[in-house]
């Protein structure tokens, strides 16, 4: 011991930070291997100040694991739910004596990543079950810690494997602890028992383990990149079996005989082979020692975590603040590994990076179909879905039959979307129906809004989830006028979608077949609408017009073909660029919608537009659109109002299961841990670290449309935001503003009339989730309706309480 102490002292110099007792302890821990001790001490004491300071909730450390051997499952579950373990545990000094319950070699991992933690714990559980109080545990743990301690170890290996690998290892750990006696099937069972001095080989094996984890991680990310998220999840569980076997072997082979050296040799080979295989699969590059070391990365991550503002997501921080992070930044960001130790394990996937990779293939747009009642919205969309192959021939025949039976043969296409008995019986869409289709460059989630004036609240709910819109107008004689005149929904819907932030619009001039494709009528409709839409605030270039027939299916998915019953249309509707061709069809226009910017890096917000029991006991599924931020399976989310937290168990993006989703996706989230009673339409699922504000009193800037009576102080109306409607009162009109200059025209006017812009204070009957418009567009918009008319739309400018 004394000799070891002297050697270590010599090696590290007479640093005052390291006391003799500490050195002794670590020596004891490393079974008097002075090299390992030195390495560990160097690393540890270099990091020490950082570690102490970095007591943020995001920091990942090691929980006390004394109870693992008894209640490992519970402890693991508990562990997952606890973002920040007691700092003492994370900071833990060596407790090297192997005694039941073993405090194990994990203690040396205080500055290490989650991988070490989870793995150490997993292994700890494993070996404690296998042979309580015996040495192997510490050895295995140490192998890992040594791996961490060695500066030369492939950095990507440690940290890339960190989070997923950590989870993986802990899973393996718990798995094996459940079957402690399972015979070793793995390659070259190793025997750690009785080993007094850990050889370099055991460290190498640890390195190997890390590498395996790394490879899996890379492979997983690569697969995710192609969008096959589900497949990746499977791979995650399927692939590591070799690793699992290795660990099993480590635990289970305590009684096995044979020379350890030999065993290690075999293992090394095995791992090398495995690694090679993984590399080939994933195309991951061999580590060239040209990127920052894991220590650097840990340092930088901890620095980032410490420096993170309390509300800020750590992952939004620049990935590389580390000293040596210059050139390899790109790779790092892609792998998103550097802040791994600083974030809780819930964020397994760096969704932002994944999302960035899929850009170009994954261009999803939410499209709302609006227009006056009976303009043919549902029929048009139903026909589109059919034409694009989303509705089978057989299903359509069935609908045709059913519709024919009650004498509504022409409604067959509409029934694709109008599914309830009431809707079918009355021939009116009542609630928003969803569907999806893809064009050459875009994927669309369509929201077919009801046109009837009584269902405008539903339409608002749909339109608030949309990026772009199709305005369907009835061009038949009298049809256009009834929708366009005062009180018609063509106007109201256009105003509403614009106020809800939709700037791109395609106007489908429908039912032109009823006026025998009269070009003059088309021009008239376009001219009248054009002037109005400009006054609504649409930009001229963002509004495009297309003549169609929803029922006849003309010019929807294919350009008008003179042979297919649209000769009249083809006669005058030509492509502007190439007059030899017929003009572009509806799908052509949809395909060229510009993609809106997604607020991916902002805190998560999903406004609940519907919820229902589902996805297993105690789970609730909510549907809505991710307004901003990202979400992934396993992530903790908060429901506001209420503030309860739950865990996302499953994500469906557009009815297809996924492991993550980003802003703009229409999702169904299955959430566990929150009672269904807590849910309500209008609630918002958010990031727990930055929940949305809930208020009953706020200030808004309103654009007043055409209310039948002026708005006064104390004016009561219904406030709509997202899918929610709640009675509200305009408590006070603060001032009227000049729309163009922003100048205050008049303070405290007695009333405001149509066409004015004003700042008002609004008080709602119950508390609602709202955010400043500047912070979250979707949740910062409000609409005031009264007596079935939309009287004003506005944005939240201040929240009063």
């Amino acid at each position, binding site marked *: 011991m004394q000799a070891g102490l002297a050697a270590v002292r010599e090696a590290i110099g007479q640093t005052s930070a390291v006391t003799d007792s500490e050195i002794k302890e670590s020596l004891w821990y490393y079974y008097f291997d002075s090299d390992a001790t030195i390495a560990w001490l160097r690393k540890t004491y270099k990091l020490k100040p950082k570690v102490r300071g970095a007591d943020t909730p995001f920091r990942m450390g090691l929980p006390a694991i004394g109870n693992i051997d008894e209640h490992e499952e519970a402890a693991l579950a508990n562990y997952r739910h606890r973002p920040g373990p007691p700092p003492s545990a994370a900071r833990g000094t060596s407790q090297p004596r192997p005694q039941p319950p073993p405090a194990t070699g994990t203690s040396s991992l205080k500055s290490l990543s989650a991988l070490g933690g989870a793995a150490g714990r997993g292994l700890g559980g494993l070996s404690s079950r296998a042979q309580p109080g015996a040495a192997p545990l510490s050895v295995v743990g140490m192998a890992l810690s040594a791996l961490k301690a060695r500066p030369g170890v492939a950095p990507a290996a440690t940290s890339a494997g960190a989070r997923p690998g950590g989870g993986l290892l802990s899973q393996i750990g718990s798995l094996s602890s459940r079957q402690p006696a399972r015979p070793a099937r793995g390659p070259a069972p190793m025997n750690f028992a009785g080993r007094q001095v850990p050889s370099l080989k055991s460290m190498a094996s640890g390195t190997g383990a890390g590498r395996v984890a790394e490879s899996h991680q890379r492979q997983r990310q690569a697969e995710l990149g192609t969008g096959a998220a589900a497949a990746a999840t499977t791979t995650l569980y399927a692939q590591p079996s070799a690793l699992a076997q290795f660990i099993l072997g480590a635990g289970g082979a305590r009684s096995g005989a044979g020379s350890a050296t030999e065993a290690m040799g075999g293992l090394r080979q095995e791992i090398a082979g495995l690694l090679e295989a993984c590399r080939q699969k994933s195309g991951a590059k061999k580590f060239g020692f040209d990127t920052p070391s894991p220590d650097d990365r840990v340092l930088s991550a901890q620095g980032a975590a410490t420096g993170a503002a309390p509300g800020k997501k750590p992952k939004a921080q620049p990935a590389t603040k580390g000293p040596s992070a210059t050139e390899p930044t790109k790779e790092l960001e892609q792998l998103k590994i550097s802040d791994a130790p600083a974030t809780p394990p819930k964020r397994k996937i760096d969704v932002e990076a994944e999302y960035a990779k899929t850009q170009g293939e994954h261009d999803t747009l939410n499209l709302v179909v609006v227009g006056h009642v009976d303009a043919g919205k549902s029929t048009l969309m139903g026909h589109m879905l059919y034409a694009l192959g989303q509705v089978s021939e057989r299903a359509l025949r069935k609908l045709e039959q059913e519709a024919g039976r009650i004498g509504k043969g022409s409604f067959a296409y509409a029934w694709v979307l109008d599914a309830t008995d009431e809707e079918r019986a009355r021939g009116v869409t009542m609630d928003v129906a969803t569907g999806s289709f893809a064009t050459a460059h875009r994927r669309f989630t369509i929201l077919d809004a009801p046109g009837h004036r009584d269902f405008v609240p539903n339409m608002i709910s749909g339109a608030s989830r949309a990026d772009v819109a199709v305005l369907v107008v009835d061009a038949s004689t009298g049809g256009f006028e009834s929708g366009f005149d005062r009180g018609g929904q063509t106007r109201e819907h256009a105003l509403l979608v614009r106020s809800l932030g939709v700037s791109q619009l395609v106007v489908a001039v429908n039912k032109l077949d009823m006026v025998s494709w009269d070009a003059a009528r088309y021009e008239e409709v376009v001219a009248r609408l054009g002037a109005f839409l400009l006054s609504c605030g649409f930009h001229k270039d963002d509004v495009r017009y297309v003549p169609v027939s929803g029922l006849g299916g003309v010019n929807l998915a294919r350009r008008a073909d003179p042979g297919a019953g649209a000769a009249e249309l083809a006669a005058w509707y030509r492509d502007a660029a190439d007059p030899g061709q017929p003009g572009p069809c509806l799908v052509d226009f949809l395909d060229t919608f510009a993609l809106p910017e997604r607020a991916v890096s902002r805190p998560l917000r999903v406004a609940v*537009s519907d919820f229902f029991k589902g996805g297993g006991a105690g789970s609730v599924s909510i549907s809505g659109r991710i307004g901003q931020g990202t979400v992934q399976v396993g992530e903790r989310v908060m429901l506001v109002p209420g503030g309860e937290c739950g865990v996302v168990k499953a994500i469906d993006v557009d009815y297809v299961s996924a492991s993550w989703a980003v802003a703009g996706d229409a999702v169904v989230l299955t959430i566990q841990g929150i009672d269904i009673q807590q849910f309500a339409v209008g609630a918002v699922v958010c990031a727990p670290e930055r929940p949305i504000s809930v208020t009953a009193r706020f200030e808004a800037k309103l654009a007043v449309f055409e209310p039948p009576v002026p708005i006064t102080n104390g*004016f009561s109306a219904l406030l709509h935001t997202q899918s929610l409607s709640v009675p509200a009162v305009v408590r006070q009109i603060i001032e009227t503003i000049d729309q163009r200059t922003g100048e205050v025209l008049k303070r405290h006017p007695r009333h405001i009339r149509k066409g004015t812009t004003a700042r008002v204070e609004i008080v709602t009957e119950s508390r609602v989730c709202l955010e400043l418009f500047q912070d979250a567009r979707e949740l910062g918009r409000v609409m005031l309706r009264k007596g079935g008319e939309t009287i004003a739309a506005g944005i939240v400018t201040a929240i009063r309480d």
Partner: protein
Amino acid sequence: MKLLGRQIERDQSGSVRLVPEEPEDIWHAYNLILKGDQLTAVTTRGVKSESATGSVSTNRVRLKLTVSIEDVFFDSYACALRINGRVVAENPHVSIGQYHTLDLELNQPFTLAKPEWDVISLQRVSDACDIARQADAAAVTMHEGLAVICLMTQHMTVVRQRIEVAIPRKSRGSTTNYDKGLQRFYEQVYEAIKRHIDFSVVKVVILGSPGFVREQFFAYMMAQAAKAEDRAIIENKAKFLLVHTSSGHKGALEEVMRDPQIRVRLADTKSAVEARAIDGFYQMLNSNPDRAFYGYDDVAKAAENGAIGTLMVTDELFRAADVPTRKKYIRLVEDSKASNAEVLVFSSMHVSGEQLNQLSGVAAILNFPLLIESDDECE
């Protein structure tokens, strides 16, 4: 309310003896009884008595007490009134100055003495004792997932129950959840109607909703009633009126009052008159803003100029705790009456009254336009 006696002196002080007979009378009493008045009524109180040997026993004693009122609390749902104050009249059981809380009970006479009976209070007494019964109505406003069941009497609209059921939206491929949710919702509304609406009293039941909910629900209700042989519903089928509203929130009652069908049925009820008046105010504000004023300062100026055609005030203002405020509004009412204006004291328990409350509690339609330079315009 029954008036048993009235002794009011020339200086307007005096007392009135009344018997509340139905829940609405408690509301009237609430509007009459103000801080500082003296109330005499029968009540019970735990009285401690000490015997000669020193043992203490507590008995509940029914006794008549007079208290000087310090606090009044009204529970609109149960129509109960609790009055707290100090005992002022001598009594064998309670000494003067002790606190007591009275519960005003139905069919138990009480005597209210005021230092000054103003116009509003006297008007309230005569309103309360008006035996010409107006139609009591019930109203159910609903939209998918929300229903509000109200009882409307002459002076009050009381929400008896608010039903909120989460109905899953229609989803792709299946409407089962939606249908189930809707059934559950209708079932609850139906049960609530049976529980809260007494068809022997209620003359009309209004079902108001956007879309087709009311028709669908009405069909459901009649089918259920037929199945369960619920005579109360079947026999009163004619009392149901289906009206279009834009939403299911309580505020939609305002639209109900505008419906021509309802206007005929409830033509002379206070709520209909009030709804019409406030409508008129907004119409005037729209067409001729110089003839529609609100807020005390503006209206008072109009009153000074004798311009007021219709004055609308909520009763809440007269329940104001501080005397000067009350006096201020009473003067406004008296001035307006003197200039032959129509004065409507809105019940703050009606939807229109709530609206007027929001609108500062006082508004006026003027006979001729007036230009006023309100202070804020000078800013």
